[in-house]
């Protein structure tokens, strides 16, 4: 009986370690793959890409809403001196500017119904001042959402999106 104690302990230890490792690395792995897929579909680094209206043929992210306009900007703050200036143009209905890190956390969201929003995104460990947000990870994505549930409003949202910007300074 005693000779099975060691193998059983090894089995248990490996099971727990692999279980925790999968949970720990899965979000980053999935986010990384999603970012790669977005890049392959033309979502630029440090620039908002004019989106197509979400439908079964254009969707690239799970559970996207067909009623919303989504503009994405990938960021990379590997350089500790870097900052990304983000501007969301005005829109009369619901709109928000949300920030996601490499672990999928939504670390900041700014609502901007009927107004412009400007903010600077700083590398991890930076000290944030007024109008600045510190990213928990060097890489991530900025997302503009606008309520646009039909073709006409999506076209208007696209015109509003021409005033959005996301640039590495």
């Amino acid at each position, binding site marked *: 009986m005693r000779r099975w104690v060691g*193998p059983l302990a090894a089995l248990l230890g*490996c099971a727990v370690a692999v279980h925790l490792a999968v949970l720990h690395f*899965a979000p980053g792995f999935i986010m990384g793959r999603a970012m790669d897929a977005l890049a392959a579909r033309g979502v630029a680094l440090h620039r908002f890409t004019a989106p197509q209206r979400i*439908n079964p043929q254009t969707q690239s992210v799970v*559970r996207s809403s067909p009623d919303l306009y989504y503009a994405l900007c990938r960021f990379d703050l590997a350089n500790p001196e870097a900052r990304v200036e983000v501007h969301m143009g005005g829109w009369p209905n619901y709109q928000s500017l949300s920030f996601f890190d490499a672990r*999928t*956390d939504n670390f900041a969201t700014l609502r901007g119904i009927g107004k412009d929003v400007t903010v600077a995104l700083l590398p991890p460990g930076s000290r944030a001042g007024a109008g600045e947000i510190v990213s928990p990870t060097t890489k991530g*994505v900025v997302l503009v959402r606008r*309520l646009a549930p039909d073709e006409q409003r999506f076209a208007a949202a696209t015109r509003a999106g021409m005033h959005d910007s996301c640039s590495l300074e």
Partner: protein
Amino acid sequence: MRQVVAYLVAILTGCAIGFGSAVAMAGLWPGSSALAFGDVNVNDWRSDFAIGSEAADPYTRARVARHGLLALARSEAVYFTRATDDDGQPLREACIYRLSGGTMPAGWWSVTLYDARSMLPNNKDGALSIDAGRAGGGEWEAIISPEKPAGTAHWISSRKAGTFDLTLRLYMPDPAVLEAPANSLIPPRIERQSCTDRART
């Protein structure tokens, strides 16, 4: 030698159990149920208010990465998902459902149909959801079916959806929804009207 083999088998088995259990418990298995989980349950519409936040436990975090990437934190939006009708049967393309509800405690809301892969069903019907604007104020209803029924103001197409679920988005939710969802939210009802296979009609 036997002891070495025993350790080797134990390590491989342990790794397999650890991997499989994590994948299953986090909903990472291909074709696994989407967001029909969470600790918030209002009439079988389920949500996890930790979505998008650092407070999310590892299972929620992994599940959302797989099924709800880029979801907003609860102060901005909450997401409820339901995969069964009012009788507890799985939602299926073979059936016709009446989805109905009233005013929702949020600045804007929508109900969208997703297939088992958490994607919009691969059809070109242009009828993927209903939202606050189309529903108007007060009571509303929509028909969920693979073919557009005659005389229906609001239709959500389940064509090519297979087994599906519905996601209720509440943007700018009332604070009461976050504090006591069961007391402040009356989610949509999902009444099964008929199925093409009679056994489940």
